[in-house]
């Protein structure tokens, strides 16, 4: 039996060691759009929201202006609209010893609305990934790799071949950089595709009291650890109009919530002429830098 157990250990330890070492050394922002977010330590200052915030707010710019390490813990509109799953994940990622943290919560009409099925049941199906991810600050994050069928780990060995064509890169501070070769022509195509997609797939969303509840709960919980700022990131005019069609009184509602919890609401939704997007929805990275700079100014002036 001893001999058998020794052989078993020999055959399990080596592959496991290779798995762990390669995951620690070689996993970078190219292998997966989310993986690194679950490998960094618990954080004191967070950026929260959907892909708009993930691409539009740069922790490095916030750090240079506000002298704090920020972490962008935003995912996508499918994975991280406000809700129980995202709320629990934020709380897991938060360093509970934080005293004077800064929490930037990006809001938009899509993050407080939901799809409903024919029976009127609200859908949370896309939030399962966030919900089931119990460890959010473990490196290597074995849970994430295993739950994703080893694909993030396999990408370590394959992504170097395709890295030259790769346009998305997740930075260690959580910022999702889209290295997009912007041209007016490409932008026009992207905008058309995005608007068509949103008109078809997102305009049947309805306001969700569940999501509003969790937005409030997120604010309330984070207030215990520092100051909360609600931010509406600018988009293209077309997207802004679409959002107004979806929830015409969105700004009014958010202002009400901001007043209720006495937090500033920085609404930049009408700044569409100032910033450039890649597809109408996400800020192009030079614009994202400028926007974050402006956001810093607003935060400083509101103190």
């Amino acid at each position: 039996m001893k001999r058998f157990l020794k052989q078993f250990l020999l055959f399990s330890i080596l592959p496991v060691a290779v798995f762990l070492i390669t995951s620690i050394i070689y996993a970078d922002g190219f292998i997966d759009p989310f993986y690194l977010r679950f490998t960094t330590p618990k954080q004191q200052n967070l950026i929260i929201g959907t892909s708009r915030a993930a691409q539009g707010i740069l922790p490095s710019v916030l750090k240079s202006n506000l002298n704090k390490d920020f972490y962008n813990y935003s995912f996508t509109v499918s994975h991280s609209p406000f809700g129980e799953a995202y709320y629990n994940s934020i709380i897991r990622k938060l360093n509970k010893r934080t005293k004077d943290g800064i929490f930037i919560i990006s809001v938009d009409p899509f993050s407080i609305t939901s799809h409903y099925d024919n029976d009127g049941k609200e859908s949370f199906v896309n939030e399962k990934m966030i919900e089931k991810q119990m460890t959010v600050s473990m490196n290597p994050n074995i849970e994430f790799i295993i739950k994703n069928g080893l694909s993030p780990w396999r990408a370590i060995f394959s992504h170097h071949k395709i890295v030259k064509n790769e346009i998305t890169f997740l930075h260690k501070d959580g910022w999702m950089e889209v290295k997009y070769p912007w041209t007016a022509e490409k932008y026009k195509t992207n905008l058309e595709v995005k608007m068509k997609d949103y008109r078809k797939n997102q305009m049947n969303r309805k306001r969700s009291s569940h999501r509003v509840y969790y937005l409030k709960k997120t604010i309330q919980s984070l207030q215990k650890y520092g100051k909360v700022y609600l931010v509406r990131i600018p988009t293209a005019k077309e997207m802004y109009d679409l959002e107004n069609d979806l929830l015409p009184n969105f700004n009014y509602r958010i202002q009400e919530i901001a007043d209720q919890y006495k937090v500033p609401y920085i609404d930049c939704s009408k700044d569409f002429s100032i910033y450039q997007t890649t597809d109408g929805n996400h800020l192009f990275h030079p614009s994202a830098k400028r926007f974050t700079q402006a956001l810093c100014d607003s935060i400083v002036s509101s103190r």
Partner: protein
Amino acid sequence: MLFNSYEFAIFLPLVFLSYWFIFQRNLKLQNLFILSVSYLFYGWWDWKFLILIALTSICSWGSGLLVEHYDKEETGKFNKRKWITAANLILNLGILGFFKYYNFFVINFIELFASMGITLEATTLKIILPVGISFYTFQALSYTIDVYRRDIKATKDLVSFMAYVSFFPQLVAGPIERATNLLPQFYKPRTFNYSDAVDGGRQILWGLFKKIVVADNCAILANYIFGNSADMPGSALVIGAICFAFQIYGDFSGYSDIAIGTGRLFGIKLMRNFNFPYFSRDIAEFWRRWHISLTTWFRDYIYIPLGGSRKGKWASIRNTMIIFLVSGLWHGANWTFVIWGAFHALLFLPLLLLGKNRKNTGIVAQNSFLPSFKEFLQMGLTFVLVLIGWIIFRANNIEHLWSYLSGIFDSSLFKSPMYVSMINDNLIKNVLFVAILVLVEWFQRKREHGLQIMGLIKQRWLRITIYYVVIFLIAMVGAKQAQFIYFQF
């Protein structure tokens, strides 16, 4: 719990260590432990269906005791042994029939009467098919029939019997064990055998390779092509059929290898279920090598009791048709399975009637490395026939089957399928994985499984390298975790 899941990767070592280090000294406790972990394994999927498996076990155990009890009191015309056995068979087949075939028969009766202009009102039920019900029911039935035939003594040991019905490695997808083989193994103490356990480990590794690397990768193309068959050229449909042939083989024989290997880790020998079936030279040989535990079950409990081939030509034809049709229906409530069974019966009958069904009983190319030209042609032809059978088996319904088959036999058969991006992206790697499988199994065709290389490769370092290559392939190129096909049966 799936064999290819991380839960099982934790479950198995824990159970193994507890089994040998904590419970080895007391046989009854060890059997109770096997029973408990088997129920945990099954209940992981849905604990509610544990009631069914417990009911099947307790009724079969009780009926066995009663049959044996009345063995001595056999008087008069009323044969109690027969009635008790029949009652237990009806109960078990009734449960199986309800969960598996209720909706199928209701729908078909309604359609049959509708075709005669009679409208029937009946409702179908939302029935969830309990995983592995066909497997453990047949295993319990084998005990009932064996006790009735006096081939085995009825057991008073309920725990051993329940462990026999629910032994976790083969509970949900076989091999369908016989009471005569498995049950006595629970009566006597098991001792740890190093070389058996190591070879069991190798067999598990090979089973995982077949499932995760071959079957799950082939499944990507097979599912895509069968799912979009109307838009595919004939050449792509042939690729889809070949991919499914290797998907179902890798999936099911991989499961059996893992089950048998796991059994060996616990000192329990399970019967062989596959014997390199794609190297068969005729359909009769294929059926001696494919899903052996089910084929022999039908042979021993249906074909031979009906008279087998001893009662003349017509009885042979009738009996052959019956076992193939029942075998088809055993796989599921769909006419495609029945047609699949009938198709194989039609292929098998000429061999039976000409007395050539036992022509190829040995190992192909027994004394040479390569097959002769004749053997090669025979294997090729058998594979093509089996392939047609798999198209029937995999089709969603009869219309789908017809459109798939007619799609193959048109001019697009000679059109390159590479313009279909899914095929372009996956074909080469699938060909490579299938080639590895076929080559390894050809080399190993005289042995129990693909990785039984002890004695064949003398150098230890080379054997270790091979194991690591297999582990590497499973980790690097295995497809995403997918359920085993035979769970649905």
